[in-house]
């Protein structure tokens, strides 16, 4: 399930909720991404989404991850709007029978979210604002999944 959230969320609470009531899940992996201050260079991040389109595109990749890694369940929370340093931007949790699938699917989903998911990210700091686009590193990270 993907949920866009406009308010701060507690990743610990999200993980606890995701773990609850499972008797056939042997492994849950999770990732939390936080907004970084970059030594004072970033005072605010702003994330823009295209409602419905963004959820649907992420949903397609979520389904691909479920099929590829044999997941039992996925939860993705992604912030939109203004986000100050220290707050969680993204949370991904994957549930599987065994750990390898859970770890790999979490990694796969984060690589997708960094460079392909329909979000636009603006960084504001003392020198003004700039739009962040995927780096070569982000693209290389995603390419790892295309050959294997």
């Amino acid at each position, binding site marked *: 399930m993907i949920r866009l959230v406009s308010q701060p969320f507690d990743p610990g609470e999200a993980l606890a909720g995701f773990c609850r009531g499972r008797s056939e899940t042997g492994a849950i992996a999770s990732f939390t*991404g936080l907004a970084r201050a970059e030594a004072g260079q970033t005072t605010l991040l702003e*994330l823009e989404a*295209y409602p419905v389109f963004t959820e649907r595109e992420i949903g397609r990749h979520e389904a691909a991850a479920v099929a590829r890694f044999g997941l039992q369940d996925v939860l993705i929370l992604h912030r939109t709007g203004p986000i100050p340093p220290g707050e969680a931007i993204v949370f991904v949790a994957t549930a599987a029978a065994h750990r390898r699938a859970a770890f790999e699917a979490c990694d796969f989903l984060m690589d997708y*979210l960094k460079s392909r*998911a*329909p979000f*636009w990210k603006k960084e504001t700091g003392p020198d003004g604002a700039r739009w962040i686009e995927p780096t070569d590193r982000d693209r290389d990270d995603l390419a790892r999944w295309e050959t294997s």
Partner: protein
Amino acid sequence: MARVLLFGRLADVAGWRERDIPARTLGELRGWIATEDPALFEALQAPAVRTAVDQSLVSLDVDLRPDSEVAFLPPMSGG
């Protein structure tokens, strides 16, 4: 008439985020932008900018309905 949505840096270039533009096809819409806002038109030419019509990505010219929604999407980055 189509409802046009701009995301990310494209909205900064144009100075608007959402507006109606008279056009019956995507090609006509691009033509209107080329005439009315050359800076936005140039920004839309970047190969990484993708276009969605009624929430589906398109790569060729398509017909627009009177209530179509056209979104121009610059390179995406989440997380």
